[in-house]
């Protein structure tokens, strides 16, 4: 754990609240939400390595595919959509680990649970900041890697859009698994074993949308399904994560 996070967690929270000009006793839900969001973003920005790791992982995994499959452009074109999506999925799994970890270790997670604000919004704020830090860069890097895998040009926008809709779902589902396992001493691969099966629909819809886009097929169904998944997980997953946090911390 880095020094920055140790010192800054709870003090930063208070400072944020002070900056917003609110009394600590009567913080509106929105103020607490934005304070949590800003705090997490600030901490993440101070830890550059954590920022780069998911990106590097994504880059490495994608470049393993040509090495493992073939360097033949035609074959790569066929697997490009799936390869980019699977790598994005794995990258977001990997980065999940530090979603609640540091907060759990320094005790600020417990404070979060004790706060009078609805836990749903606090967890949502953490999710959003985590996605901005680890999901969004992956989405932005994806077209470059897709180019390296010879993805047809028609599919670029679909790739970026489905990743934009899909990676938040991955983060939201993943947060449930992280919340369930945050108290465990040695977690190893259990997080992946729990969360990966839950992410199957996202992978199917996302990869299929990109493949179909490169074939010039209509995509209305894919986007509406992905949107439905995002809406569902936005409304339900933070509730489940909040309940899971309460179970793990007590």
């Amino acid at each position: 754990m880095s020094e920055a996070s140790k010192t800054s967690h709870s003090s930063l929270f208070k400072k944020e609240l002070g900056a917003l000009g609110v009394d600590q006793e009567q913080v509106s839900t929105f103020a607490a939400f934005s304070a949590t969001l800003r705090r997490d973003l600030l901490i993440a920005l101070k830890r550059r390595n954590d920022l780069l790791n998911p990106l590097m992982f994504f880059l490495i995994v994608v470049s393993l595919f040509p090495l493992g499959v073939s360097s033949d452009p035609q074959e790569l074109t066929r697997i490009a959509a799936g390869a980019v999506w699977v790598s994005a999925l794995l990258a977001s799994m990997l980065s999940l680990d530090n979603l609640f970890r540091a907060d759990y270790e320094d005790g600020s997670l417990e404070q979060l649970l004790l706060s009078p604000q609805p836990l749903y919004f606090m967890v949502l704020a953490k999710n959003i900041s985590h996605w901005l830090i680890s999901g969004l860069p992956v989405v932005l890097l994806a077209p470059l890697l897709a180019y390296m895998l010879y993805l047809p040009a028609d599919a670029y926008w679909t790739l970026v859009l489905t990743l934009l809709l899909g990676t938040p779902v991955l983060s939201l589902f993943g947060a449930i698994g992280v919340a369930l396992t945050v108290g465990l001493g040695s977690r190893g691969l259990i997080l992946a074993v729990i969360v990966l099966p839950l992410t199957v629909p996202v992978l199917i819809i996302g990869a299929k949308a990109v493949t179909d886009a490169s074939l010039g097929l209509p995509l209305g169904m894919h986007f509406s399904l992905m949107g439905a998944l995002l809406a569902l997980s936005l409304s339900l997953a933070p509730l489940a994560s909040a309940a899971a946090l309460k179970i793990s911390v007590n």
Partner: protein
Amino acid sequence: MWQWFFRLGSPKWFYEMSGKWLPWLFVLMTALLSVGIVWALLYVPQDYQQGDTIRIMYVHVPVASISLACFPLMAVAGIITLVWKMKLADMVAKCAAPIGAWFTAVALATGAIWGQPIWGTWWAWDARLTSMLIQFFLLIGVIALRSAIESTDAAAKACALLSIVGAINVPIIKYSVEWWNTLHQPASNFSMAEDSPMGPEIWVPLVIMIFAVYCFFVISLILSTRNEILERERRSQWVVDLIADERTN
């Protein structure tokens, strides 16, 4: 009105009652199984396309349909655990997970064996096999989580939550896998058995086998739940007395 519900939640009461049910269930299962298996193996006419492989259906379909019931069962037990903090519900959920994994694995294996003559390969990424496989992974996840958390109470709640999340996800996974599969390749002719009208000589033994396997599921669930009850209540007086009274064999 709720009295029976909470009495049902008492492990001791359940242990005593299930001890009385078990012999009857066992007799019922044996009767249904022997009738069902003899009927399926000897009397069911050969299918005009599948030949004798239709006899595989009488094992595969019951096992598969009961393995689908496992996640809803665990989710209901999970809700009872979280809302009413009933210990018995968690014991049932804990025992249901490995049994469900067994059922799912057997359904996968028999499905693969049934599919081989039709597809010409042992494994096909058919919609049903694939969603069954992912359900298997979900069950493994629940089992892994259970064994990773040391505190029984925390493990109970965590697994309850994961089961509920999984149960919500199972239909979504099923739907998305079907959608993925039907658009990828022409629909498999695996569903032939359902498309063609089934005469009573086909479906009556199937219904018998489904009930037989259901009995088997209930029996094995009760047996392992009883062990779990003894294990967790081993310090209470009634278990100590019970162990002292048990004949050595």
